[in-house]
């Protein structure tokens, strides 16, 4: 065993750090670090910079612009990006659709869509979830009926993250009601400008507009927009879900959140001393840190195994559960750390242009909202209950 990074890994990390120090716009990292809203333009600006460096889609095969990184390298990259305050790289086109296209798409689909994902021409969103089909994805009802050279799509999708910005959507649709529920599903690419698509915002509990409902009424989709074979969409969907799991544990985000928490706990005073010296608070922070440190090693153990060819199975579920539990605990501690100043919430203060003086400490405003917003972590992307089911099925044989 060897816990340290190798020389080449350290050289790589330094290269990443150097790149971030020089190329990540301070305007953008300030937004991220201060918990401000990011606009479409902010995401695009950063992704363009990464693309110029060739680091936007490191997991893709080299012929399509991938970087051929090892799992450890990907981990280092994510950790450094979070530390530097880079915006998250939106996964819909880059991490979700692309691997499916690369594995199951036609040559034409690949050469058309992949470059446009990289250069930002197409902003993709995901059409998986439906109302009434949360964790039970296979019960989806959105229907695509073949009529000549087209599918006619009718139905409803929900939880479509940043769908308000999207040019395209990849959708799971039902093309058959025969056989098992999983068997009649197909994987379609749909231009968001097609008539019959309506995007309605879903306002979240903190007042934010991040996700959407999508309504499809007689939407005409050319048959060449089908990926792979008709009725085989479930296979591609599952491939998508198990692929690209480097970030499942959310180590980078937890790291950054813990660092931020430590700053807060150093500034907030309790009974005349910094909160971080309060034994109760210090104990909870230390426990979270100990769990996170162990989690880093658990994560890297899984990743290095993945590098040597082992498929990440229920390990992904374990990373998902523990990773989200730790991150939510850190969010909870940050909220507590603020005391009464966790209460005020000024939504406009999340905008870049806002320049009134803050209420309470300047870091206070987004903290409680973050805590509430991140309750989603244990719900979305396969709820932690679903993940426990997967573990007990595969690991315990139950």
């Amino acid at each position, binding site marked *: 065993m060897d816990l340290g990074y190798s020389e080449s890994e350290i050289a790589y990390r330094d290269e990443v750090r150097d790149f971030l120090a020089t190329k990540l716009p301070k305007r953008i990292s300030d937004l991220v670090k201060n918990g401000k809203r990011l606009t479409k333009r902010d995401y695009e600006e950063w992704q363009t910079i990464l693309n110029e460096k060739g680091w936007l889609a490191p997991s893709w095969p080299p012929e399509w612009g991938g970087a051929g990184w090892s799992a450890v390298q990907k981990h280092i990259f994510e950790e450094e990006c979070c530390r530097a305050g880079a915006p998250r790289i939106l996964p819909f086109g880059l991490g979700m659709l692309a691997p499916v296209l690369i594995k199951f798409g036609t040559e034409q689909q690949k050469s058309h869509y992949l470059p446009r994902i990289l250069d930002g021409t197409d902003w993709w969103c995901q059409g998986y979830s439906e109302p009434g089909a949360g964790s039970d994805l296979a019960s989806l009802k959105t229907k695509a009926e073949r009529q000549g050279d087209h599918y006619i799509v009718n139905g409803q999708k929900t939880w479509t993250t940043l769908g308000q910005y999207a040019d395209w959507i990849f959708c799971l649709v039902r093309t058959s009601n025969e056989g098992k529920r999983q068997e009649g599903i197909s994987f379609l690419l749909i231009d968001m400008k097609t008539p019959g698509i309506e995007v309605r915002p879903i306002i*979240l*509990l903190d007042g934010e507009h991040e996700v959407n409902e999508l309504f499809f009424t007689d939407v005409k989709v050319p048959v060449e927009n089908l990926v792979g074979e008709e009725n085989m969409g479930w296979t591609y969907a599952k491939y998508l879900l198990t692929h690209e799991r480097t970030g499942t544990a959310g180590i980078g985000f937890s790291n950054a959140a813990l660092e931020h928490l430590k700053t807060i706990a150093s500034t907030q005073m*309790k009974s005349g001393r910094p909160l971080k010296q309060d034994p109760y608070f210090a104990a909870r922070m230390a426990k979270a840190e100990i769990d996170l440190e162990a989690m880093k090693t658990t994560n890297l153990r899984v990743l290095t195994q993945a590098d040597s060819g082992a498929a990440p199975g229920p390990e992904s579920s374990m990373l998902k559960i523990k990773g989200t539990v730790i991150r939510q605990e850190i969010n*909870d501690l940050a909220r507590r750390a603020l005391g*009464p100043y966790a*209460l005020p919430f000024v939504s406009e203060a999340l905008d870049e242009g806002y320049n009134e003086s803050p209420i309470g400490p300047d870091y206070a405003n987004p903290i409680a909202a973050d805590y509430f917003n991140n*309750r989603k972590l244990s719900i979305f992307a396969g709820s932690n209950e679903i993940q426990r089911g997967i573990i007990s099925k595969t690991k315990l044989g139950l």
Partner: protein
Amino acid sequence: MNFDLNEDRRILSDTLEKFLRDKYPIEKRLEYSQSEHGFSAQMWQEFADLGIIGALFSEEVGGFGGHGDDLMVVFEQLGKALVVEPFLSTGALSGTILSAVDSDLIEGVISGQTQISLAHSEPGSRYDLAYVTSSARQQGEEWIVNGHKSVVLGAGSADKLIVSARTSGAVEDEHGISLFLVDAIASGVELRSYSTIDGYGAADVMLTNSPAKLLGEKDSAFSLIELAHARAIVAVCSQCLGACEIAKDMTVEYMHTRKQFGVIIGKFQVLQHRMADVLIELEQMRSSIINAAGFLDDHRDLREKHCSAAKNLTGRAGRQIAEEAIQIHGGIAMTWEASVSHYAKHIIMIDHLFGDTDHHLERYIELS
């Protein structure tokens, strides 16, 4: 030993519950909360007319209640409807102080004419009631107050503020704190109003040489401030209990209707067992509040110990209940549209009022 409410309180509880069911659906509540003043002046008047404000005051000062039981009954119902009108500030906090030092104002409060907020905590005080840096000095007959008061509930709509300020002693001394009445439109009073994340109106209040009237005795307001907070703790814990009851009911209801994998999710044993634990914690929460309410009129150490126990247990149980409500509802609970989200927010944020679980655990140990 008797845990039943007497007839009067049962009627009070039923009346208020029915009134809120008719007049205060969640859509209205959200509307009031997002309106200019963060509450409905008309509803406040209707509550007054119904006698709800008066139920928080003792007969000696013109009310018809004021006991721990009354606080429990009223605030549990207010919590069930997430009522945003300024009961905590004008009723529980200021009401306690007025009852002790200036009963002349109470008539106006009970009738709904006057709203009064307690401006006590400060940016550096966290939950320490003795931490006061605001200062007051005498100028002839009058007093002049200076300071910055933080997260003052109901300040935006208050006609008057009760302001704590130091007349002697060091920043964290219990001795040397006095209370003052300050007109909301007095000179040098500046408000930074906002809504809390769970939808209640509050403000930071800056006082610059504001004229003020001394309430009660100089230098010795601490014990009264502590009493006001003890009563506010019973009130806010009861409010939390009411909100938790509804969050629990909504979750149980959802478990009966929402299907996944072809069955209602209530059939999943893990959810059943977690809800069984929620029920247990809910009963424990109620018991701890009964204890605190029952000892409100007892001697100080016993009263404070039971209040700290209740606030600690309510905070712990509340977090569990709110987080389970969200998790079991799933994604829908993350939305503004689902009313369970507003209940969950309020339950969680109550831990930031009048001392959180840690604060009161520590205090309980000190008082043991």
